[in-house]
């Protein structure tokens, strides 16, 4: 079987609302091991594991951790559970099925970095996950895994759940920080980066839910052991949210290096009604759209970076030949028109014009000039936007212009 379960190994085996059930299943063992070592050793193990962030950008986790550990004074840890990217449901599944693993990962990071306060930021629509995480934090506090003098080791860490009112952009670090501070979710100028100036201008470490869940395991088995799974540039496993016109939709965990085709055909059992695949969108609305012939590509951070985008979120959306490229692009782009925060001009104004142009193609009114306009505008939005939203929202357009160019020409009126 191509699945390898590390972060999802407890799914269905533990009762998410029972801390005892979690403890029975190796729960908080990673934390116990971590606190028996020096904090820097914990980060050393993470460095040896070569784990990269699971939220999409794939930034090496130890660099951020080390930056926070080296900062003095008050500092914060945030678990990014906003998961607004369409087609992704891995973080929700983690929060709903194994919430203590998230708390454990965060406490380990608190111990390693000296942070005393953390937030679990959960997408506003995830009401069930919010309830579960709140109960989980309370249970962990009662058992002494959170709060003051954790495991009698003399370190404190308080955790709080925060949530927005339903905004995609708060998944972006600085928008999330603004939201945690009680402000509208709009990004800030970078640099400084959050590890220098985050919440209340204090150093802040933000990791994705899945990244935190990996930490207890890394501490428990050791970084080198962890790195044996996956590929040279991408170690460990990846949760894959598989959706679209596929027979067995769902969440799967595979080692890095697995091919997209294997995920779709072996785990997803192929396309419904055995229709041909027209395209596959990776990562979500901000990810590339690739044709069927590219499905042998393996899931790997470095491979994905070829698309000018970072698509480590692990969503695979399969679209069969009943749909044309413009259907998909319009859904994506209308989403971004709705979700842009409106702060910077190219993102706020650009997406509106992108939708206008796509509509011209959809309805056969486009000219070759429009094709040039679209290509130019997509690049400008990508190059000049303030935050990750506008910098990645054009990935589907740009990849479609590369792999589905004929589809555009087919719609051009001469």
């Amino acid at each position, binding site marked *: 079987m191509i699945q390898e379960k590390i972060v999802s190994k407890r799914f269905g085996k533990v009762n998410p609302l029972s801390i005892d059930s979690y403890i029975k299943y190796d729960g908080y063992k990673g934390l116990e091991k971590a606190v028996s070592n020096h904090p820097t050793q914990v980060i050393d193990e993470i460095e040896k594991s070569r784990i990269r962030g699971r939220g999409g950008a794939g930034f090496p986790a130890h660099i951020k951790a080390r930056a926070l550990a080296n900062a003095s004074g008050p500092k914060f840890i945030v678990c990014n559970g906003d998961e607004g990217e369409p087609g992704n449901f891995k973080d929700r599944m983690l929060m709903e099925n194994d919430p203590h693993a998230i708390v454990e990962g965060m406490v380990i990071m608190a111990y390693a970095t000296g942070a005393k306060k953390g937030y679990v930021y959960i997408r506003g629509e995830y009401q069930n996950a919010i309830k579960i995480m709140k109960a989980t934090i309370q249970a962990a506090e009662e058992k002494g895994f959170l709060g003051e003098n954790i495991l009698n080791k003399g370190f404190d860490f308080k955790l709080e759940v925060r949530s927005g009112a339903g905004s995609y952009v708060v998944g972006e670090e600085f928008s999330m920080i603004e939201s945690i501070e009680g402000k509208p979710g709009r990004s800030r100028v970078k640099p400084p980066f959050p590890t220098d100036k985050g919440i209340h201008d204090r150093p802040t470490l933000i990791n994705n839910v899945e990244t935190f869940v990996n930490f207890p395991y890394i501490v428990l088995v050791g970084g080198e052991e962890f790195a044996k799974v996956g590929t040279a540039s991408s170690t460990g496993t990846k949760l894959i949210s598989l959706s679209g016109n596929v027979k067995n939709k769902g969440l799967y965990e595979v080692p890095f290096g697995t091919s997209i085709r294997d995920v779709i055909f072996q785990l997803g059992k192929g396309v419904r009604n055995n229709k041909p695949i027209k395209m596959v969108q990776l990562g979500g609305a901000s990810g590339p759209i690739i044709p069927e012939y590219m499905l042998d590509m393996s899931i790997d951070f470095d491979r994905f970076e070829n698309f000018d985008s970072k698509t480590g979120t692990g969503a695979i959306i399969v679209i069969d030949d009943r749909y044309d490229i413009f259907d998909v692009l319009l859904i994506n782009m209308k989403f971004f028109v709705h979700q*842009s*925060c*409106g702060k*910077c*001009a190219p993102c706020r104004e650009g997406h*509106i014009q992108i939708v206008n142009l796509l509509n011209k193609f959809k309805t056969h009114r486009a000219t070759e000039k429009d094709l040039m306009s679209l290509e*130019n505008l997509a690049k400008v939005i990508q*190059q*000049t936007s303030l935050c990750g939203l506008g910098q990645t929202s054009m990935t589907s357009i740009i990849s479609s212009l590369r792999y589905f160019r004929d589809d555009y020409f087919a719609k051009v009126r001469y």
Partner: protein
Amino acid sequence: MVNLKINNIDVQVEENTTILEAARRNHIDIPTLCNYPDLSIKSECRVCVVEIDGQKKLPTSCSTIVREGMVVNTNSPKVLNARKTIIELILANHDANCTACPKNLNCELQALANKLGIDKNRFPTVLEVQPVDDHNPVLVRNINRCIKCGRCIDMCKNVQSMGVLDVMGRSKDSKITPAYGKYLSDEFCTYCGQCSSVCPVGAIIEKDDTDRVWEALNNPSLHVIVQVAPAVRVSLGEEVGMAPGSIVTEKVVAALKYLGFDAVFDTDFTADLTIIEEGNELIERVTNGGTLPMMTSCCPGWINFAEQKYPEILDHISTCKSPQQMFGALAKSYYAEKMNIKPEDLFVVSIMPCTAKKYEAQRKEMRIDNINPDVDVVLTTRELGKMIRQMGINFEDIQEIPFDKPFGITTGAAAIFGATGGVMEAALRTVYEVVNKEELQDINFTQVRGTDGIKEAEVVLGGQKVKVAVAHTLANAKILCEQVKAGTSPYTFIEIMTCPGGCIGGGGQPYGTTNAVREKRIEATYNVDEDMPIRKSHENPDIIALYDEYLLKPLGKKSHHLLHTHYSSRNK
């Protein structure tokens, strides 16, 4: 020091310099839009993007700090294309009917489009027309022209501590507005107009009253007179292209005569009068145990602020009307009697550096016996500039003319009202000599000059040391108000001006007012003072004559009738 290359030129700048500053210091121009000197870096318009070797994205030069060995290109084809595309995008969601906009030819967006060679737009307009907020007598907000650069928010929230304006909604629905999309008049707006002075386009602008003035000037049954505020003589030149700090006092008089005013007077005269009334009020409060510290009352933005935000401390504010209103009241009583004109046939116009003066003139308290308004129309410096251009006056070369009588003589003390600390200094020159009955050794109170947010000084009055303070911008005013409210204020007399730098930095002054420009205008203001033969208000012979002939004595019955007012809580 950091070494880098910009457009193939070797450049050396201090650490922590932005690319934008580094470029400008080396005479390389990078266009900007949301950026404004003295305000925070917003990095929202993305117009100032540059290309840095090794980076795929185009970072904004306003927010990116230089690094050793950086290779920057500010004009690569990629950069030029991005810049142009962004301006086109902004224009496609902007009411670009330029000839129907008061900012035509004075608009930063228009200038930028022109500079980048945009003569057509690849993008169709996506503007959704929304109603204009003109529900107050001072400022008009036309959201259809707003490009969401955020300067007004920064000014209102961070410089003025008011936060009346902010972004509401997101993406294409985001707009800059008072809370819940209400009108400015529903909010704690002081009408200081600083938002209008930094708006790059015509989205927020003072209500244009020039038509009302033209109408009055062309009405043969009206005697139309005009007063000119102290700060206008050091700024109006900028409206016709003269350098900041040009002193144009008597050119203004000549231009106003040319426009057809029957008489042109100097608000400096009633500034001197204010010093006499306010100085005596201070002396009375100090000697008779009145409410202290006393606070100045000449700034209408500050009065709006106090009435709305600090109703508890209204007793501290001098009951003196502002010089503008004192002039209006005297014009419609003393002058009207002297000239044998019925007050209703007398039309009083003010030229002010200020937008809040428009509100002040319309207050119901500002009418003698509740009948005629003291001042009929207030024009900003910018509006006068517009009238001068409309009439095709060659302002720079115009033959200078002195102000008219009977308010002809003014002093250096009045001239400095326009700069932060000026009212305080003018008052101290008089109060010191009246109370101590001795001549000042040095009449220059330099401690209260300059652009520090809050300035302090100590003077000996009647053998006692008293402390005074001066604040400009409402954020600084707030600090002193909190002390007064808490009863911990160590001061006897406080001057407050709403606008940065005082009236010379007023919300109605020529566009492009920055701290550097303010400094120039302040310098000019003190030069005017130095050049005056009389520099203390109580030595003004016309003021002395006015008391002898008409008012009889400071704080007397007539003074109270004409020159004093009261305040009321407008806490919402």
